[in-house]
C-alpha cells in the first residue's frame, strides 16, 4: 500500500492535461456500484408490500432513517435538498467500506472532500439568499459593517475546514495503515490488517461521514433560518 494517489491515465482535452487519478477511477466504481444497487432497489420497489419484509425492510430503513435525520436537521422548509446529502452520506460511507477491499478511499483525497464541501457551501449560499434574501447578505455586516472581513473569512473557512477535517481523518487512517504495512514483517500483514482497516476506515470513516453531513446540514440550515 503506497500513500500517493496514483495517476492512472492522463488525458489531453483540447490542449489541457487532465489527470485521471485513482480517486476519480474509484469514484466511478463506487458510482457504478451505487447506481446498480439503486436500480435493483427500484426494480424491487415495484413489488413492495404494505407490510415490509426482507430486502424491503433494508431499503425502507436506509431511506427513512436518513430522511428523518436530514428532515430533523434541515427542517420541513429545506427538506427538498435532502437527496443531495443522502448521496454524500452513501458515497462517503461506501468509499470507506471500499477501502477494506484494498481500494484507496476517495475521501482520502482532498479533491473529493473539497468538492463535496464546496457543493455544501454553494447550497448554503443559495439557500441563504433564497430564503432570507437581503437579510442573509446583511448578516455579513453584523453586528457592525467593520466585521464584514471577519464574517467573510468565517464563511469562506467553512468549506475549507469541512473538507480538511474529513480529508485529514481519512488520510490519517491511510497513513497509519501504510506505516503498518511498511514497518511490520510479512507474517503479520495477513489477518490483523482486517481489524485495522475495519477500525480506521470503517469506524472512523462512518464517524467522519456523520460529522461531515451533520455539519453541512447545520451550515445550510443556519444560512436559511430566519
Amino acid at each position, binding site marked *: 500500500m503506497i500513500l500517493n494517489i496514483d495517476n492512472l491515465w492522463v488525458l489531453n482535452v483540447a490542449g489541457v492535461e*487532465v489527470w485521471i487519478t485513482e480517486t476519480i477511477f474509484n*469514484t466511478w466504481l463506487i458510482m457504478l456500484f451505487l447506481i446498480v444497487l439503486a436500480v435493483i432497489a427500484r426494480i424491487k420497489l415495484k413489488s413492495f408490500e*404494505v407490510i415490509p419484509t426482507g430486502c424491503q425492510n433494508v431499503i425502507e430503513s436506509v431511506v427513512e432513517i436518513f430522511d428523518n435525520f436530514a428532515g430533523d436537521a434541515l427542517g420541513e422548509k429545506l427538506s427538498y435538498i435532502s437527496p443531495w446529502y443522502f448521496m454524500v452520506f452513501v458515497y462517503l460511507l461506501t468509499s470507506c467500506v471500499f477501502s477494506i477491499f484494498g481500494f484507496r478511499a476517495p475521501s482520502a483525497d482532498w*479533491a473529493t472532500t473539497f468538492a463535496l464541501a464546496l457543493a455544501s457551501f454553494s447550497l448554503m449560499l443559495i439557500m441563504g439568499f433564497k430564503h432570507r434574501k437581503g437579510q442573509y447578505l446583511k448578516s455579513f455586516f453584523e453586528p457592525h459593517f467593520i466585521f464584514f472581513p471577519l464574517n467573510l473569512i468565517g464563511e469562506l473557512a467553512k468549506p475549507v475546514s469541512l473538507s480538511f477535517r474529513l480529508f485529514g481523518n481519512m488520510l490519517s487512517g491511510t497513513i497509519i495503515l501504510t506505516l503498518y504495512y511498511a514497518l511490520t514483517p510479512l507474517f503479520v500483514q495477513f489477518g490483523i490488517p482486517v481489524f485495522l482497516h475495519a477500525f480506521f476506515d470503517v469506524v472512523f470513516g462512518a464517524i467522519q461521514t456523520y460529522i461531515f453531513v451533520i455539519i453541512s446540514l447545520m451550515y445550510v440550515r443556519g444560512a436559511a433560518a430566519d
Partner: protein
Amino acid sequence: MQDTVVFLSQTVPEGRVFGLDTQTLISIGIQLFNAIILAVALGFILYNPVKDFLRKRTEGIQKKIDDSDAAMLKAKELIAEYDAKIKEIDKERLEILEATRLKASEESKLILEDAKLEAVEIKKRSADSVSAEKSRLKEETRIYIIELASLMAKKYITENIDEDTQEKLFEESLAKMEGAKWQS
C-alpha cells in the same frame, strides 16, 4: 494525433498525496460533476421513489386511522343516540306503567265501590228475603201450630169429652164466632 480533442498521454506523472495546483482544481471539478451525477441518479432512481412510496403508505394508513376514528365517533354518536332513545323509552314505559297503575287503581276503586254497593244490595235483598222467609215460616208455623192445636184439641175432645159436651162447646163456639162476626 494532435488534431483530436481528447487523447491519452503516453507519459503518466507520478502520484502525490496533496497539491494545490491546476490538476487539483480539475480533480475537484470532476469530483463535483461526479457527485452531481450520483446525486441526481440516486435521487431519481432510489431516494425520491422510496420516499413517495413511504409517504403514500403513511397517508393510506393515516386515512385508515382517520376513517376508523370517524367510524368510532359515529358509532359513539349512535350509541349515545340509542342510549337516549332507550332512556326515553324507559321514561315512556314508566309513564305508561304509572298511568296504567293509576287507571287500574281508579278502576279497582270503582269496582270495589260497585262491589260494595252490590254487596249492600245483596245484603239488603238477602235481609228482605230472610225477613219474607221468616214471615212465611212464622205463618206456616202458626198455621201448623193451629192445625196441631186443632188436632190435639180434637184428639183430647175425642178422648175426654162426650158427645153432648162436644155439641155444647160447639154451640158456644159458634155463638162466639157469630157474635164476633156480627160485632165486626
